[in-house]
């Protein structure tokens, strides 16, 4: 059925070159008045000299370019996106609308506070929801994503230690081996030393392992709950107590909060700080890699150290405290007040669900994952499949690898079946991990179809169809891409000299 077309298109799949290959410096999709010229120029002779060589397109060409590109993407709106640890749930369109209200979108962060009372009220409302849901007394809204929230939490811990005069002595942070890469990276960025808690066979962090590492040089622990294996940490409360007893703090990575929202309050587990990825649990769109938002809830012990800005209410009027002088705030996370555009979406989401709907979110997320676990367990190895999972199903390739098919091959075969695969090879503690997170916004029939596909693929493995997998994907917009080649001699931008070569490749 396949042949080379003259156009390079294949039916509806449109070939599309780089804008640098088809655009030109005189093309433009905006109409602006011609500048009147240099009469009033105040540039002090520092005007740009050389040509910029930025290609421009008329609006029709621009729209077409990006619409064509978009169709080369998979997305939640096309189907199940079971990427574990990423909580790819439906993004309600009301949220998009609310974020675009003129009264939010066309507001400058430094406007006089008399003109931004609604924005401050919204931030307070969001804070209220986050604090009530987590059972925590404070929240820093400004972190710009999960990793930034981790940084915020660890800096709050550092400031608390400093206030106690122990910042210099307590520098060790315990991080389970199964942690997401951002955890150790953050701990180091905050000036701590990472001490790994080795993985255990049951995928949990054991109290004993933590206790064994406690000492007067320990600043705290960074744990993920539910953890990256998709399991609730049964000993979490006791671990928290032990840490506190030893004079440390408990940072919880809240990336997996979706599994427990409305069911369990992190504040009841002894947590001192936890970031919440609004782009996961509270469904602000992932946008192909961001933006996110990582508000970080804080315990009473850490609350005083929350970074500026703070919202201060005087009677009915809200003001901003923007400087840390005279406060215990540890500093500032970014130039302004955080990801307002995500706050509007997240609050819209929360209010839409309400306390009842959010609880149902957690229950359905967990139910969907356990349903997939039940259907897939007979066909794949589920390393911790004996007990219920939370919102994620963790499988590995140990049952298929001996037959020549690895996690990556299974993933690429899913592309042909019209799915985005699971998260591959994470967490690192499970070899050939396949981490499947369906989320609560999937109907049962989509889960069933996905399970059918997974099972059919397992049967192909059993039938010895190794080449089938190695050749995959065959139906996706591209065949398997060569990562090694990309990294070996990096080509990270279009360059005029590479022009003709690139053009040839595109054709």
């Amino acid at each position, binding site marked *: 059925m396949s042949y080379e077309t003259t156009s390079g298109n294949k039916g509806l799949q449109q070939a599309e070159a780089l804008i640098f290959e088809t655009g030109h410096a005189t093309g433009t999709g905006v109409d602006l008045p011609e500048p009147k010229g240099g009469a009033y120029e105040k540039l002090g002779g520092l005007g740009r000299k050389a040509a910029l060589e930025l290609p421009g397109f008329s609006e029709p060409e621009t729209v077409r370019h990006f619409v064509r590109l978009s169709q080369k993407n998979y997305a939640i709106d096309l189907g199940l996106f079971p990427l574990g640890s990423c909580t790819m749930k439906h993004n309600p369109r*009301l949220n998009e609308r609310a974020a675009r209200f003129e009264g939010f979108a066309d507001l400058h962060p430094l406007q006089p506070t008399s003109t931004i009372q609604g924005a401050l009220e919204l931030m307070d409302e969001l804070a209220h929801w986050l604090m009530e849901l987590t059972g925590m007394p404070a929240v820093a809204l400004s972190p710009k994503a999960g990793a930034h929230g981790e940084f915020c939490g660890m800096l709050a811990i550092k400031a608390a230690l400093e206030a106690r005069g122990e910042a210099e002595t307590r520098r060790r942070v315990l991080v389970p081996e199964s942690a997401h890469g951002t955890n150790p990276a953050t701990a180091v960025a905050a000036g701590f030393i990472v001490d790994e808690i080795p993985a255990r066979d049951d995928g949990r962090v054991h109290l004993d392992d933590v206790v064994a590492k406690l000492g007067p040089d320990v600043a705290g622990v960074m744990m993920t709950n539910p953890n990256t294996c998709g399991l609730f940490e049964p000993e979490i409360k006791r671990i928290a107590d032990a840490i506190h007893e030893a004079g440390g703090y408990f940072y919880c990575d809240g990336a997996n909060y979706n599994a427990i929202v409305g069911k369990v309050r992190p504040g009841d587990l002894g947590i001192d700080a936890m970031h919440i990825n609004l782009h996961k649990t509270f469904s602000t769109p992932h946008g192909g890699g961001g933006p996110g938002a990582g508000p970080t809830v804080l315990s009473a012990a850490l609350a005083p150290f929350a970074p500026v800005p703070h919202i201060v209410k005087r009677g009915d009027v809200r003001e901003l405290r923007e400087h840390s002088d005279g406060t215990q705030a540890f500093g500032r996370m970014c130039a302004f007040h955080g990801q307002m555009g995500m706050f509007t979406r997240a609050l819209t989401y929360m209010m839409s669900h309400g306390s009842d709907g959010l609880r149902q979110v957690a229950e359905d997320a967990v139910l969907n994952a356990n349903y997939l676990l039940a259907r897939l367990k007979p066909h794949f190895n589920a390393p911790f499949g004996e007990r219920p999972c939370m919102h994620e199903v963790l499988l590995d390739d140990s049952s298929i690898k001996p037959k020549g098919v690895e996690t990556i091959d299974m993933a690429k075969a899913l592309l042909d079946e019209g799915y985005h695969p699971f998260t591959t090879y994470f967490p690192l503690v499970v070899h050939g991990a396949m981490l499947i997170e369906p989320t609560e916004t999937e109907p049962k029939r989509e889960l069933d179809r996905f399970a059918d596909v997974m099972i059919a693929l397992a049967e192909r493995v059993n039938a010895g169809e190794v080449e089938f997998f190695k050749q995959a994907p065959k139906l996706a917009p591209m065949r398997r891409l060569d990562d090694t080649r990309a990294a070996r001699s990096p080509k990270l931008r279009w360059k005029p000299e590479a022009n003709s070569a690139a053009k040839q490749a595109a054709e």
Partner: protein
Amino acid sequence: MRYLPLTEADRQQMLSVIGAKHIDELFVDVPKGALLKDLIDLPKAQGEIEVHRHMQRLAEKNIPAGRTAFFLGAGAYRHHVPASVDHLIQRSEFLTAYTPYQPEIAQGTLQALYEFQSQVATLLDMEVSNASMYDGSTACAEAAMMAARVTKRKKIVFSGGVHPHYIETARTACEALGLEIVALPAAIDDEAAVTGKLGADVAAVIVQSPNVFGTITDLSKIREAAHGAGALMVATFTECTAFGLIEPGGSYGADIVCGEGQSIGNALNFGGPYVGLFTVKEKYLRQMPGRVAGETLDADGKRGFVLTLSTREQHIRREKATSNICTNSGLCQLAWTIHMTLLGEKGLRQLAALNHEKATQLAFALGAVPGVEVLTTRFYNEIAVRLPKPAQGVVDTLAAEGVIAGVAMSRLDPKAGMDDVLITCATEMNTHDDIATYADALKKVLAQ
């Protein structure tokens, strides 16, 4: 609940496949007592009508920039974003995709990233760009940390023209790492003070042009001084449209050029989300923070794009990563790329020229107000003026008149000793009438 597709019947059936009687059996690992029996004390689910109404009510308690005579910049700028930009970024395939971890079904995002990197590097006259940072301030902080890694030195010198919030953001991040921040006194024209301050312990000198007072600076001397001392020069910025008209940091030989990209493609959004631009010289590539897309071939030999050089990143390198950043500014970066594609060289140059023209008109109009002194002599679209009264009070009074005049330097940095300095800017959005309204209102307020 309109977002939850499972029916009660589905739930029962699924539980029975799982072999559980009640959903709470799946929560067995939660410590006794921590599993909530009751609903949390928050409002229950509401329909679209009610939620829409609530959000609208909040929105209408604000006064949007567009409903005023608006002259505020200082890190975020009010520009016109063509309607097609917002239309395109709302395409499901962009909006609801994740980071392109499976490149075979993410070429849309990846090619757009590659185009972004190419546009940014071209605009800033640098060799390599990453795939975006959170915003300008965090990009600047990352640059400081990167410079320390590259030079293995611990002192970061900030010129007196860098946005105070950028300095505070970098200070917060750097001091945690044990780096020392030296922030030179705020100065309208900050060039001279910098060049003198650079010892052999300096990792980087960070300069901003146009600076927070709007001043544009020839960075050649600073570059010479920095490189002479074995330090990097980091050039940051808050207004990227400037480089349609003036030379960017890259043209002065900066080692890292980074800053805020919001002006292109992105609304004010009360401060976020924005998009941090981050570019480096190729030789520092392996120390660069953040994701990057690169060209490669597929199994059929066709050109395609992938995320690459991930051994720098936290998910591979963990505690040795160049940064902890993971989620970045994807969609804002896409908006930037789309808007920049619409502009092209021609549109960008026109836009920049128009901004400059409006700012010169503004400077002229304000300079004619009795008691007002225009402090910035070389500028793009922003200037600082000295008022005969504390600026904060003037700003507040003018706001009540429907004029958002800018920001008082005392708000950005209360300790700068510049209480009478107002930072004010004009863009293509300001009409002649706006400027006249502003000047008249200011005259009245100052006369009171």
